[in-house]
């Protein structure tokens, strides 16, 4: 799980062009939207692309997205759960 979280941090920085953010700056439990990284709606779409491109995952239920994209940790938990 820790490796996955570190990979996700790097992928999020690259996919979302967060040029001034380093992986160590991202708290895995901090909210991705609103506070924390302060991502916006376009970033949410980029995260959906990231999930599909890098992990072959599509979120089937839109209502689940709010929880899945809550933090890097919840994103990692979702990816892990889908691989089982």
């Amino acid at each position, binding site marked *: 799980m820790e490796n996955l979280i570190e990979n996700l941090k790097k992928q999020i920085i690259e996919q979302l062009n967060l040029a001034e953010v380093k992986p160590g700056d991202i708290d895995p439990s901090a909210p991705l939207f609103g506070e924390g990284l302060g991502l916006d709606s*376009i970033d949410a779409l980029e995260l959906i692309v990231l999930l599909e491109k890098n992990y072959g995952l599509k979120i089937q239920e839109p209502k689940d997205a709010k929880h899945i994209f809550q933090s890097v940790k919840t994103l990692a938990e979702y990816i892990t759960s889908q691989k089982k």
Partner: protein
Amino acid sequence: MSAYILSHTKIKNNCLWHNGKLITQHSKTDNYISFLEESYKSLNLSYPKFFKMDVLSKLGILCAEQILVDKNISQFSKEKTAIVLSNKNSSLQTDIAYSKTMSDFPSPSLFVYTLPNIVTGEISIKHKITGENAFFIEPVFNAELLHNYTELLLQESDAVLCGWLNVDEKACEGFLYFVAKQTTKDEKKINFIKHNPNSITQLYIN
């Protein structure tokens, strides 16, 4: 009505000038994207969204920043400040970049910049400008068009941010200037330039 050009900024050949003074220069790189990002850093701008923007918006934000943070300019009403921009290539470079992603995973963050007037929105958001705006596509820099449209806008607006922001495969070129019908209290201290097509052309060329 008399209108004056209070401030002007130019980016060309990896140099940034403000009111004729060289502000930043990066001769080590011939990559204009690197130049814009290095300029952002050297000017100590704190606006992380800058890195998510396309080149046209980065160019516009850097040019506008020099003008709009000036205390002689920032006193103008944001509600009564308009923006009139122009270029030759519209958003073509971003359109091409976006089209390349379409065969794989279309990029949402590129898609949102596939219109030239997005840069007016980015400048407006950063500086809270809510006046009229327009973006013209012209084959070459057209001082007369910008002058005439600006004079029309000044019937209702106090000031207009005008200019030319163009990006192609090899280079980017930015020229923005700020026009106001009312001069500031510091008028006598600053050499304001009369707003007419000739003076605009001279600033663009020089």
